[in-house]
């Protein structure tokens, strides 16, 4: 499919190439601004973390009984964000949706970046981060292994495998593009692409192999994505704490994850679309679809909230009833109602077609949902700990500025990695876009 540079000028395909590779070739002041902002956030968070390492976790607002706070909240949140990317992309792949070509790649990248961000937080959270390796199963002379009954240990495995598979999934999808880039892009990046493209030269045999391998990964990714979030939910559902110990947690987490993931995806895509004028590829249809999905998930979340409360009072367990009463009316009631507003009410605007087709509205809704989902995680983690079995141990938790700085640092880290990735790797699958174009011209993709 790759034709000689000489012919490129005349060829409309080269136009597509220019657009699809725009994120890598064009670097506006906006990009540098964003990168700078993100980097400085990371620096801030890094400093805050260093104080935790040097002085101890006393600098956080944590106390007994609220031993988990904003750090774990951010962990769960980003695991959630990581969710939609590969999942959506894989689903679109199987449904052979024409929409996938334009958005799939960025979504996958988002997954990768989000999970790399989430992974930081358990390490920060333990305070003496250098001991984190204790939870890894590695052969040692003491004959000590991690406790395989502990959901935290399952987390380690779930997240590691999710990272690996997602990375491979993205990578495999990018092979043809890398090969292309190895020809198109000069300078220091060329040898990199040479190496990464594994010598892919677009022969039929290679395409056949690729087409055969790709679905396998896509197939693995979907159940894996579901499982990862179920496992994270078990960190809570496997305990005996009221408000956590609940069978609904796995589906609830998965729904919440897709919900927040979609919101994040909308934000990133709209940014790309505006920043690089990709309106031709990232179309209303995409956003419409995403908006519908977000709406659906919002409804699911509302249902889950309702169920939680219903069960709490229906079960007649005084502790749990007291907890949920307090969650809605106690010290954290403002957060609770904020969450309801953000996750259950605001997204309802997506019922209107006009809202779904106005990028501005969608961006606002997505921001609201992102905020809502972070606080939602915060809410169910903290309220349960702050107000359970022992009245004498009821206590309020307020995160300190340093904690929040570390959380913001996470968002900075997330954006920074994403910005770097779109510089190094194409944000749209060139090959697939071309397939699309050719298909519309009634040609075979690679003759």
């Amino acid at each position, binding site marked *: 499919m790759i034709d000689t540079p000489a012919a490129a000028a005349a060829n409309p395909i080269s136009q597509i190439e220019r657009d699809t590779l725009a994120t890598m070739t064009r670097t506006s002041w906006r990009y540098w601004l964003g990168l700078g902002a993100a980097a400085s956030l990371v620096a801030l968070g890094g400093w805050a973390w260093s104080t935790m390492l040097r002085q101890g*976790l006393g600098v956080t607002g944590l106390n007994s*009984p609220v031993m988990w706070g904003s750090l774990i909240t951010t962990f769960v949140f980003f695991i959630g964000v990581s969710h939609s990317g590969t999942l959506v992309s894989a689903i679109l792949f199987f449904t052979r949706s024409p929409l996938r070509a334009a958005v799939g790649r960025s979504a996958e990248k988002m997954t990768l970046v989000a999970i790399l961000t989430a992974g930081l937080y358990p390490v920060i959270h333990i305070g003496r981060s250098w001991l984190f390796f204790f939870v890894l199963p590695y052969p040692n002379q003491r004959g000590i292994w991690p*406790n395989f009954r502990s959901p935290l240990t399952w987390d380690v495995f779930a997240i590691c495998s999710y990272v690996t598979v997602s990375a491979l999934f993205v990578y495999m999808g990018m092979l043809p593009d890398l090969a292309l880039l190895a020809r198109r892009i000069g300078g220091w990046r060329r040898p990199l692409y040479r190496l990464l493209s594994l010598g892919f030269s677009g022969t039929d045999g290679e395409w056949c192999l690729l087409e055969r391998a790709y679905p396998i990964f896509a197939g693995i990714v979907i159940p894996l994505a579901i499982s990862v979030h179920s496992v994270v939910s078990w960190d809570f559902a496997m305990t005996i704490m009221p408000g956590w110990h609940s069978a609904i947690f796995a589906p609830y987490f998965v729904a919440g994850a897709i919900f927040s993931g979609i919101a994040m995806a909308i934000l990133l895509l709209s940014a790309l679309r505006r920043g690089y004028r990709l309106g031709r590829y990232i179309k209303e249809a995409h956003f419409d679809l995403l908006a519908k999905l977000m709406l659906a998930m919002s409804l699911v979340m509302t249902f889950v909230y309702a169920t939680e409360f219903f069960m709490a009072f229906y079960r007649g367990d005084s502790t749990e009833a*007291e907890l949920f009463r307090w969650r809605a009316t106690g010290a954290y009631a403002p957060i609770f109602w904020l969450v309801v507003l953000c996750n259950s009410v605001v997204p309802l605007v997506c019922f209107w077609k006009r809202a779904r087709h106005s990028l501005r509205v969608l961006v606002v809704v997505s921001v609201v949902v992102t905020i809502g989902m972070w606080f939602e995680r915060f809410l169910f983690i903290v309220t349960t700990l702050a107000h359970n079995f022992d009245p004498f*141990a009821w206590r309020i938790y307020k995160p300190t500025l340093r904690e929040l700085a570390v959380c913001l640092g996470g968002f900075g880290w997330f954006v920074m990695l994403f910005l770097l990735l779109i510089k190094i790797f194409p944000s749209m699958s060139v090959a697939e876009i071309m397939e699309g174009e050719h298909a519309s011209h009634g040609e075979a993709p690679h003759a």
Partner: protein
Amino acid sequence: MKTGRRGFLGAAVGTMGAGLVAGCSKRLPRYLIPHVIPPDDAVPGIARHYRTICRECPASCGVTARVREGRVVKLEGNPDHPLSQGALCPRGQATIEGLYSPDRLGTPLTTTGKIGWDAAEGALAAGIKRALDAQKLVVVLTRPELGSVGALFRTWLTALGQQPSQVVTFDAMDRPWLREGARLAFGANANPVPDIAAAKLLLSIGDDLVEEGAVVEQARALADLRAAGGRFVYIGPRLSLTAAAADEWLSVEPGTELLLVLGLARRVLELVGPDAPEGLAVATLRARLAPYDATTVAARTKIGAATLERLARDFLRTRPSLCLGPGRAVAGNNAPALAEAIYVLNAVAGNLQRTLRFLPRPQGAWAGPSMELAELTRRAAAGEVGALIVHHANPHGYGPLFAKLAAALEKVPFVAAFNNQLDETGRHAHLLLPDHHFLETWSDATVRDGVTGIQQAAMIPLLDTRAAADELLVAARSLGKATGLPDGAFGDSVRASFDVKEVERGGKFSEATAASGTLADGALAGAVAALDLAGPADGLPLVVASTLRQLDGLPPTSALLQEMPDPLTSISWGGWVELHPTTASALGVVEGDVISLEGTAGRTELPAHVTIGLREGVVAVPVGYAIPLLDGSPPALGFMTRVRAHRTGAKVAPPHVPGGQSQHGAELSREVTPSRRLPMAPKLPSMNPPVEHPLHRWGLAIDLDRCNGCGACVAACYVENNIPIVGPEEVAKGRDMSWLTIQSFIKDGGDGAAEVSFLPLGCQQCENAPCETVCPTFATYHTKEGLNAQVYSRCVGTRYCENNCPYHVRRFNFFDPKHGPRDSLGLNPDVTVRGRGVTEKCTFCVQRIRGGEEKAKVEGRPVRDGEIVSACAQTCPAHAIVFGDLKDPTSQVSRMAKDQRAYRLLEELNTKPGVVYLARQREKKEGT
């Protein structure tokens, strides 16, 4: 100096020989330094025990000092001593903080600064000589010294040609009204001693048996009384720990206790009719009690005629009964009369010789007539005193309370003070001589006829201090006035007066020989003075609340005692003022508002604690913090004055446990009544495999009916397990590290009388422990002996276990741990010092379990029941906590576990705890 446990051992090497090969780290000394000539029976690494006495308060309970490598690491009760019987109060547990305190003096001080000992001894002798030459008095002002040291003072004064009576005892918490009342009721040399455990009905008129006096003995007696089916009624304005332990708490109009008692006496006398105890001058008493008919008394005291009648009948019916008091909370300026009335009530009810026995006053060279504080004040002010030897007394520390005395002492040309630390009086002294700590020197104390405890030097003095007694001897010798004084060192003479057996037992203990006593003819003859309060008429009566943490009447200085929350209010670090909700709302005050209190003597500011455990219209302040308000008019620390209270607008979060003191329906601390038993424990299925305990299943049984919440167990736990002290800010954030806490719950028991129930709460050592399954690193797991182990070196600090513990008994080191004064040398070498970021919790004193098992193994026998005791069980004055093997059906703990009052916390969670609680018994108000 900042060294941890290993530093302690390092230092220990120097004194106690070699062999620290066990357990070392980078911070270890590079050298091992054995003795040149070792003590014969010293084995490094093995603890030695010395029997001695605790001198934190005049009660002088017998203690056992545990010594490792030459350092006292813990005090425990002396099982052979009649007072302690193996138990010790929180104050006693905290003693070693004072021993290792960095503030201890190591060199003599003069007004100009540090001097050497030779110079100091010269100065002391010179000062005394000047006084003698000037024909002035030499006076000794000392803390209560009921033994050799007290005797020495007298012989020393005699040798100097002074009167032996020139020994003045200084004890701010003294309760002279009891002696005075006894004198009025029974005559000059009667010595009535109550036998609490012998009574079937105990009526305490504000007498806080759990907080004041020989608390260990009294708490035990109280628990025994109630365990034997006796009733305990407490009458006083404040719901103290003692009142909380009572079956019934009543309060009368403040200041009318005297009327109540007289009314009771009259009614009892009527009821007893013909069978009045013989030798009782019924007619005269009738006449003297005539004015106090039920109606007037009921009206004035506002207690209700029915209650009055009930009390009178009970007091007579359930004999032998006993009435005690008055305590600090009700002791006003008519306290002696009240005490007298109480003795009369006992006499009328025929309790003399039964629950109120007469013992001969303890004899000894130390006893005898001695100068009163007032006289010292007068003569010092008049300039008659030429030299004053202050011995562990700090009158200047009490502000206005002893202002007169303090002012008078300014006139004394030479004041020499013996003390361990530099206190206010020390600052005013011309010469300050650092004394040994009482664990470093010899003495003894005769607390009652037939009970003399020996005070042994349990360790070599830490600093360059010298025994006060020896210094006095040196001075006398240098003045050539040593006739009648011991020749050698004072300690040797003390040691010589006890034989080996007695030293091993910790003193001379024999049955007291009962003396006789009867009501004096003059009883109640004196005019009955109504109680009147000083201070502004519109003010609120101030109740001075005695607490366990302030046995010397001053705010606690020990970091441990301050960090340990007050069991009733669960406030730690600092004082507070208690208000009844109605009083509070009248003042527009809520919990935590800073209140300004103005009395006659001065003003102070304290955070408010609003509680129903107080009568309306009064305010209560813990004794140490009430001092600024009281002028010294007798009884110095008592129910003395009214105070104006108003809020300053400032607000503090008193560092105490949140969530209030309500159980919110969660049945944690349970109660049973004759009519209401405990529900059956639910039988729940478990998905976990059954837990095997092949050899032992260690368990704890806590009898809430005996527990009075004193917190001795908490203090013992701190000392035994090297628990960090985090300070007020961290406590306020909810980061206290206490492995064992006393949770107190207060509820309205109907008709306004509040009821308090306690819950000593440590790790429950569950069989299905929620914390064990979630720990990713196996830092916590279940041992074959039923312990819920916590391996500090394996803990990474995910804090997952803390989240999943339904009892919230796990603690996390948010910062590098500090241990207060003990950081230097006082830590327990058998327990790892945890680091930052590590989770810790109660281990059932696993070091003691291992020690006991090793001992048994070496001796080739199974572990005996009661041989291994956790620190909390060991120290409990009320014997409410029992440790043992639940697998051994004959052990006391498993017998208690089968009791029908036995239950486990949050049974519905099916955690199968190894801690068994025995529910508190509540009776109906209508007595027996």
